[in-house]
Structure formats: C-alpha cells, structure tokens
C-alpha cells in the first residue's frame, strides 16, 4: 500500500501532523460530501425520473437517503485522503451536470 490507511497506521504514525491531516481531510470529505451527494442526487433524480413531479420528488428523496452511509465509508476506505475527496467531487460534478442539463420540470 503506498499510503497507509487511517486505522491501519502504527501507534507512532498516529502522532504526526500527516496522520492528523489525513484524518481531517477524510472527515471533512465524509461530512460535507455525504450531504452534497445526497442533496445533488435528490435534485438530479427529481428532475429526471419519468413520472409526475410530486412522485419523482418522493422517490428521489427516498433514494438519496440510501446513499447516506455510502459516502462516509468511501471517504475512509479510499486509498488516500485526496483520492477520497476527488471521488466525492467527481460524483458531485456528475450529479450537478445531470441536474443542470435536465432543467426544471414543466
């Protein structure tokens, strides 16, 4: 493994600022990323699901919550903190693209 992952680090490695920065980036990615991805997924699906808009909103909100535990787990399992952040940013941009292209329903 090129970058030792958070919990597998040995005791001595846990003291340094590198370890702290690693955890901090992952934690921020987990907290803000979860909300960003859930909000964008709800918004993108609400505009694209092929059903009346009130139905699309209900279903998209339900589905968005299923993602809640996925993003934090990814944030701490990814090979490195920057890769964790990049993954979440990429997914967010993709979802924002769908939301933007779809436009508000008639």
């Amino acid at each position, binding site marked *: *493994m090129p970058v030792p*992952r*958070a*919990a*597998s680090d040995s005791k001595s490695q846990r003291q340094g600022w590198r370890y702290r920065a690693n955890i901090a980036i992952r934690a921020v990615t987990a907290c803000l990323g*979860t909300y960003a991805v*859930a*909000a*964008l997924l*709800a*918004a*993108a*699906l*609400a*505009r694209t699901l092929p*059903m*009346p*808009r*009130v*139905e*699309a*909103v*209900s*279903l*998209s*909100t*339900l589905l*968005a*919550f*299923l993602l*809640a*535990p996925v993003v*934090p*787990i990814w944030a*701490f*399992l*990814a*090979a490195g903190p920057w890769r964790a952040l990049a993954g979440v940013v990429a997914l967010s941009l993709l979802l924002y693209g769908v*939301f933007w292209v779809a436009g*508000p*329903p008639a």
Partner: protein
Amino acid sequence: MSAVRDGVRQVMAWLHGWTGLLLGWVLFVMCLAGTLSVFKPEIGQWMRPEATAKADPVEALATAGRWLAANTKDTTGWYLTAPDDRTNTIEAAYDSGGTFLYRALDPVSGASVARETMGGEFFYRLHFELELPYPWGRMLASLAAAVMLTALITGIIAHRRIFRDYFTFRTGKGQRSWLDGHNALGVLALPFHLMITFTGLITLASVSLPWGVDAAYGENVAAMYAEIAPGVAQRAPTGTKAPLAPLAPMLHEAQRRFGGAPIGRVYVLNPGDSGAVVSVFRADASVVGYMPAEVSFDGATGRMLAEWTENRPAIQTYNTVYGLHMGRFAPALTRWLYFLGGAMLTLTIASGLVLWIVKRRERAPLSLANRILERLNVGVIAGVPLGCVAFLLANRVLPLGIAGRAEAEVSIALWTAAAALVAGAVLPPRLAWPLLFGLTGAGCLVAALSVPLGGTVLILGNLMLLVTAAAFAALVGRQLLPRRATPVRRARAAA
C-alpha cells in the same frame, strides 16, 4: 482498492467507534425517548388517571372545537387527534396568541383536563426535536440518524463472526463482557435497528433534505404541498371575522367519504376567519401507510372544498416508510416488539459508549479527554432516565390547576437531567453511577405506588415501573457489592 480484507474490517471498526462516539449521547436520548413514545397514548392515560370519561369521537371533536373557539385568541390553527381505543382524550396542539400549546381535552366537556400535562407527547417531541427550537432540534436529530446509519453499517462490516457472537456472552471479564453485550444487543434486533434508523431519517426529510422539492418546484413550495395532499385545501386568512360552522356535520360527511373508517386527525386552520379550512384525515391505525385519505371543508359554511384518497405508488411508498417508523398501525404484540427493539437499541448505544472508556482504561490510564467522556457518559446514560422519572413524579406532585402546569412538568424533567449531568461531572464515576441509578430506581418505585390501581393501562404501567425499579436496583447492587475472587485489575475495570 488495494486493501486486504482485514484492513477493511479494521478501518470499519475504527469508523464505527468514532461515529458512535460523535453523537452517541444525542442518539441515546433519541432512542430512549423514541422507545417510550411507542406507548405515547398509554403514557398519556397513566399521567391523566382522572380522565376516564368516554364519548363518541365525532361528538368529542365537535365539543373540543367549541371549547377551543371560546378559549384561543389570535390563533392560526388547531391540530386535533381523535380519541380511539388507546386514548380517552383528544390530543390538541394549538396556537393561542402566539404560544403553541399541547393539551389533552376532555371528550365530554371539551375543556383541557384538570391534570394538565403533555403526557407521552413530551417523549415524542424529545425524540425528534430534542427540546431545541425549530428547525435546529430536527436538524440535529436528522444528523444523528444519518450518523447512526453509518455506525450501524460500519459495525456490521467490522463484525467478524456475526452468528457466533449472537450466542457468546462472557461475564465478569471487563472489556470482553462489554463487547459481547454490545454485540449481542446490536445483532439480536439488527433488522429492526436498520429499519427504524432509515425510516427515522425519512420522517425528517422535509427539514433535512429539501433539495428534491427545490429542484422540481423552486420557490413554489405551496404547489408542492397542494400536489402532495390534494385533499387539503390551501387558503390564507382573509382578515374578515366569521364564526366557525358546527364541526359534527363535516366530520360525519368525512367519515361517510372514508367508507366508514374512523377519523384520525382534524386540522382547523384560521378558525374564526372567513378563510377558515377544516381538513379531516382518515385514521392510519389500520394501515401501515401514513395519510391514506383526507377531505377539506370551508370552515365558515361547512361546504366541501377538496377530497383525496392516496394511491400514487411513490408517495404511498414514502408514506409506508414513514408509517413503519411511527408504528401506529401496530397491534399490541407488534407494539411490544417495537418497544423491545427500541430498548435494545438504547442499550446498544449505552454499552457502546461505556465500551469506549472500558477499552481505553484497560490499556493505560485515561487521558483527560477520555476522563471527560467518562463523566459525560455517567451524566447522560444515568441522568436522562432520571429526568424521565422526574417528569412522571412531577405529574403526581404538582398541584392541579396551577398556571403553566404542563410546562412546569417539562421544566422539572429538564432541570433534573441537568442536575444529574452536573453530579456526573463533579462526583467520581464509581459514586455517581450507583447514586443516579439508585435515584432512578427509587423514583420508578414511588411513581408505581403513586396511583390507586384501576384499568389495564394503569396496572400495566405500574408493573413496568416496578420491573424498571428492580432492574435499576440490580444494577446498583452489582456496582456496590464487589464480587469475590475477582482479580483486582478487573474489579477496578468493572467499577
């Protein structure tokens, strides 16, 4: 990912520990209050032993409407829950001159009952609002539920032998025993824990995740409400005074349109105004889904404005998920299973919080941060149940008829919990645990003896209090009596 499987488990165990700790105390309060809320109507009956009058639900609601019309001023609305076979009062939430009140109304006189109390409504509100102002309490509760979902999933992934641990419990072994207990409690009702956490997250969606609504409706939130519940007429007050038409004919008409099914709730918006609207909702006690049907009437004339029976698939799915959390559909046996599942989840959280400390203390002396966490554990895990018992005792002790009686009960509960937090912070844990647990047990005992027996609900309630008192007595006994033949290190760890 380049990780070997053991690495994944280690990371998950680490994440499980930290997410569990992050909002563990908030989750403990939410789970305890939610568990008690399963018996919200029954707690209400226990706290209003004098309210035994019964009346036809439609007559009762109509009488309550007359009392509210005479006793509320500058009101934006009344929200009434009809009496059924679990409650003998009308639960009313209403705005009176800018203050929002929760009261139980007598089904015969329509007036607020003499022993004014929020009853089970206190635990219900505490469960998802945490006694914080709107919308912050609900936001915090949503956040806690999301963290809880992560803690559950990471806990499952970190778990090596989920089936074997089901049957493993090694007593008197410090950290090992706490871990076994935590695992057994968590695994035993795991499907319930996952269901209740996910559905709980859903119930607060309108506060926590409004972005789907925003994307489809933008600023026009009123359109969204109109499409979600087409049977609820949307109307602003006109400012012209007009008396409210009699409620009974509207309620009878609604019930006829529900095919004879009972009425669940009645909302009266802008009563006394010519723009008043009366919305009547079918009871959801016989179906899992929430809001199965509704009818609205013009409040001033009694003419029907709108009607709707819900059968759209996505909304019905949403309402079913919501209804699963509320558990109002549940017959007696299911209700007890909800209660047991909730109790186990509460204990899983408590044992997890204790485990955090026990694990660290067995390896090295506790750091300052962990000593603070240890004392917070005492204050919350032992103090919040004490506050709940204080709420029940205040109900018996406070004189009837004093102003703001229901609110005083809540204040006593909160101040007791606050005092317990201080005691937990100031006293050494080996004294604070048995002291607070002992007081809680004694409080349960006194509460059980505080009312003459009468009626199934009161008898069962008192029995539950006696069982709880015995459980706390056993806990105190374990903490105070050192067991023989226990090595010194373990005895210290278990203290």
